[in-house]
């Protein structure tokens, strides 16, 4: 039981560390699943997923960079 609790706590910590990144990645998966279900994507689905995840990563990196720049200029 302790092992499961520790795993879930660690998972939550990792998830909450960068909500934009985690939620964005999950949104990409949800979007691709929806696209597949509605027959919008077809064979392009995995490429769309990889591209969407990269965009989310770039957005998260850009946001963190802006936050760091603000933090440093406030000091």
């Amino acid at each position, binding site marked *: 039981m302790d092992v499961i609790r520790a795993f879930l706590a*660690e998972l939550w910590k*990792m998830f909450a560390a960068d909500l934009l*990144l985690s939620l964005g990645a999950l949104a990409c998966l949800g979007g691709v699943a929806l696209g*597949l279900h509605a027959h919008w994507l077809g064979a392009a689905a*995995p490429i769309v*997923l*990889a591209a969407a*995840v990269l965009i989310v990563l770039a957005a998260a*990196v850009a946001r963190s960079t802006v936050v760091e720049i603000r933090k440093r200029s406030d000091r």
Partner: protein
Amino acid sequence: MTSLATALPIIAAAFLASAVEVIEAFTIVLAVSVVRGPRPAILGTAAALIVLVLAVAIVGPVLAGVPIRGLQMTIGVLLLLFGLGWLRKAVLRAGGALPLHDEAAAFAKESAALRARAGAAAADWSAGMTAFQAVLLEGVEVVFIVLAVGARPGLLAPAAIGAALACVMVLAAGLLARRPLARIPENTLKFIVGGLLSGFGVFWSAEGLGAPFPLGDLAIPALIAVFLAAGLIMAMAIRRRLARAPAWT
């Protein structure tokens, strides 16, 4: 009695097919071992192997019914979240937005050292879990390969031998590669591991969604290369952005 002429192609087929899966798992285990040390990697791998052996022993006859897509999806999402987190932090460090090595100062004071130890334990835990997930997923796939290749009477043993040979050879190659890898700077390794996990995560998530990549397993190195290249471009963009930012001390 199975003749050698019948067994050899089965051994070769199981060896080659299993080697692909074992290399995939071992790449992640090796990366975990180099970044967080051998302990979490060994513990995660051992735990996954125990679960696998128990699963095969208990539910062996119905193992073919395990929903592999569900397993791929779950593990793919977890690896993607781990990988993207690592890659984001490594990119920020490589770009200069975060300090390259901020743990050293924390070890100066006892209270900070305690916090650092707690953080290290958590990192070891997630590293161990990463190794566990990779070995479990690929292990299940190796079991499926053995069952599929050795499906005819008398061929299960040669298929299992082929898979076992693949495990031993990949393990030996990995042990030889570990020492040179350990000399690579920490952030570079985290950058590479972040790219690796993100690539595997996207691949398995897509497979789990029922949308496999056109090149099959060959898409994995391509995805890893794309994530690493994108990370490098982002790090360069951060450096340029920081150079234009107002001066600070």
